[in-house]
């Protein structure tokens, strides 16, 4: 694969296919963690990700179930040696996202 970001590509492709998200933000925070101990000897620049996902698929699911759903989609990337080391998740339904945006607007 010629892509410089194979892991990010895989995240985008798998989550888009399975969850049809209305929002999908992928942040690669790996550079912030490159020097901490578990990263010694790891050459990948795609180890720490933060995802914001809004999807109807999360409807009627508690947070742990939503996270498990995402983890299961990215099982291979998480299990791989030198793969994803940390994965932060914010998982919302479209209603929850709208509510959050309204609250944020109010706070400003």
């Amino acid at each position, binding site marked *: 694969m010629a892509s410089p970001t194979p892991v990010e590509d895989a995240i985008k492709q798998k989550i888009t296919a399975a969850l049809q998200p209305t929002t999908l933000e992928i942040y690669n925070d790996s550079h912030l963690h490159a020097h901490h101990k578990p990263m010694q000897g790891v050459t990948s620049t795609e180890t720490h990700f933060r995802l914001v996902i809004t999807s109807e698929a999360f409807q009627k699911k508690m*947070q742990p179930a939503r*996270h498990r759903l995402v983890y299961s989609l990215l099982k291979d990337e*998480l299990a791989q040696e030198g793969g994803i080391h*940390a994965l*932060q998740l*914010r998982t919302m339904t479209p209603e929850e996202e709208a509510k959050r945006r309204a609250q944020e607007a109010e706070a400003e």
Partner: protein
Amino acid sequence: MFSRTILSRVGMSTFLATGPKTNPVLQAVRQTAFSSIRPATAPIKPSPFLLSLAAQRRLLSDAVRQAIDKAVGSAPVVLFMKGTPETPQCGFSRASIQVLGLQGVDPEKFAAYNVLEDSELRQGIKEYSDWPTIPQLYVDKEFIGGCDIIVSMHQNGELAKLLEEKKVLAAEAEGQAEGEKKE
């Protein structure tokens, strides 16, 4: 009880390394299931038990499952983390401990397990909880979530509600006394 060897309570020294009463079964579990961290490729002493563990590497062994069951039930609030409450070895574990501290969880009702001390625990807890990352929070033996869930429940008030319902918060005065000990 064997689990005390890997138990660390908020406000107490890192290890409560009391020698457990010698119970052959627990002893075996402790040595094989929760031994100190070691290179995965070089077990210290290959015992028949370890060899059988290796054979079923992918499956959570009964011994490890029982050991984790015991750990999960060892206190009303249990956190599996990297490092200790005093010196977390990972930002997400640190954030989780801070939230539990801010919430005022009673140290007497809290236990933390350092997965970095034991590779069997580190792998086993992921399968046990069906959750690939550390930290992991249990309240009354029920899986609550990882760092992101802990933080968001902290922010939206759900965590305070849960901890109050479960009666695991320190009383005001007690909280101060514990706070002194903690430092």
